[in-house]
């Protein structure tokens, strides 16, 4: 089952579009954070005791980023042309884009956590 998934993922196309999935999710989560806090504070006048919607949104963002990173890890290990993988061949290009995607996913994952930390710790509308 897992192996089948792996080989399926390995055959997926890594493109510049898949590359920006993680940073885009980070950006959307950033916007979501501001909107959520602004709307919540404006509507209720005080900070949420249990910001459920926020945690669901944050969990969703982390999940999307994690999946993007997971796919990228598998793709970056697809055996292909001999090392060094720096030629303009199909498999080297895939590996390169996949590797970049993986790094971006790591950065975005941390970014989302850093964005969410104030909600966890500050709990204040001011």
């Amino acid at each position, binding site marked *: 089952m897992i192996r089948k998934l792996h080989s399926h993922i390995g055959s997926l196309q890594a493109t510049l579009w898949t590359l920006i999935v993680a940073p885009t999710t980070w950006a959307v989560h950033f916007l979501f954070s501001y909107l959520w806090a602004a709307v919540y504070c404006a509507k209720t006048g005080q900070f949420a005791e249990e910001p459920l919607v926020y945690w669901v949104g944050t969990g969703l963002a982390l999940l999307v980023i994690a999946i993007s990173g997971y796919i990228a890890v598998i793709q970056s290990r697809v055996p292909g042309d001999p090392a060094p993988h720096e030629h303009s061949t199909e498999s080297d290009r895939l590996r390169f884009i996949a590797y970049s995607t993986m790094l971006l996913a*790591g950065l975005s994952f*941390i970014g989302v*956590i*850093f964005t969410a*930390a*104030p909600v966890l*710790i*500050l*709990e*204040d509308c*001011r």
Partner: protein
Amino acid sequence: MGSRNTLSHLAKPIVSGAGLALLSGCNRHQSALAPFGEDAAAIEHLTIVMVVGAVVIAIALALLMRWAVKSPEGSLTLISGERLIVILGAILPAVLLLGLLVYSLPQMRPHPVEAADLKIDVTGEQFWWRVRYAPPGGEPVISANAIRIPVGRTVLFRLTASDVVHSFWIPGLAGKMDMIPGRVNELPVKATKPGVYRGQCTEFCGLSHAWMAFEVVAMEPAAFDRWLAAERRPAKPIDGRGRALFASYGCGGCHAIGGTDQSGTVGPDLTHIAARRSIGAGALPVTQDALVRFIRASSEVKPGSRMPAFPQMSEGDARDIARYLGELR
């Protein structure tokens, strides 16, 4: 020759200016490095942690660079080199930054304010401070150009401005907060050490911006309560020439003196002017000479002052008014 002269001319003010800047940095009266409030203490603590941390990281980085440059090629295998980059370049910074974030965020939590806490409304005006104490369950007390707060109690400053943007900063007490016309910004503080301190406007607001300061007196709670009760009562104005002149020159169109029929609200309330530690928002000491000078031509002391000059006023009239004001404790 000429250029040398100008240089030595310049050197003196530059050197003494730098010395002054350094000295004022050590001033316990108005310094973020001499906190007398919880928030300023937290800021100072955070600053120290950040500076020490930055120095440690800088030194570690320099040592690492030195090692990288000096060590012969091949001292690290390709794999361990890559691992080093991942650990020092990605994991360590992420963990450090997360730690710093989690450590510093709680310090941004404002003091919880309760309905029973003292509120002080301060309005920034060119170039002075309108002050209104709103104690819980009591009538407000109007004052100006000086602020007293009780030690150990939460006080909520409600800050606004009447003309342009000003900024309210008592470096030893808390961070600064802008005063914006049409908006009330809240700044909860808690003083910890009694003493006399100083605050300053920190947003350029016109010609006398630098002359827009105020004394801050942090007092033991019991003493503060006694002071506030006294501040609420009007001073006992003495009858005489000064009092009549104050009325006939029209000072009361702008200034109020409690206990008299002078009740203007354009300028600072003068009910207890002689009990303040300065006149003109920190510009001059409270002496007869200073009062005379300020009354006749306040814009000579504070350029752009909103108080008109009285060039036709004789020295004798000014002295009488000053004597009258000097009794308002």
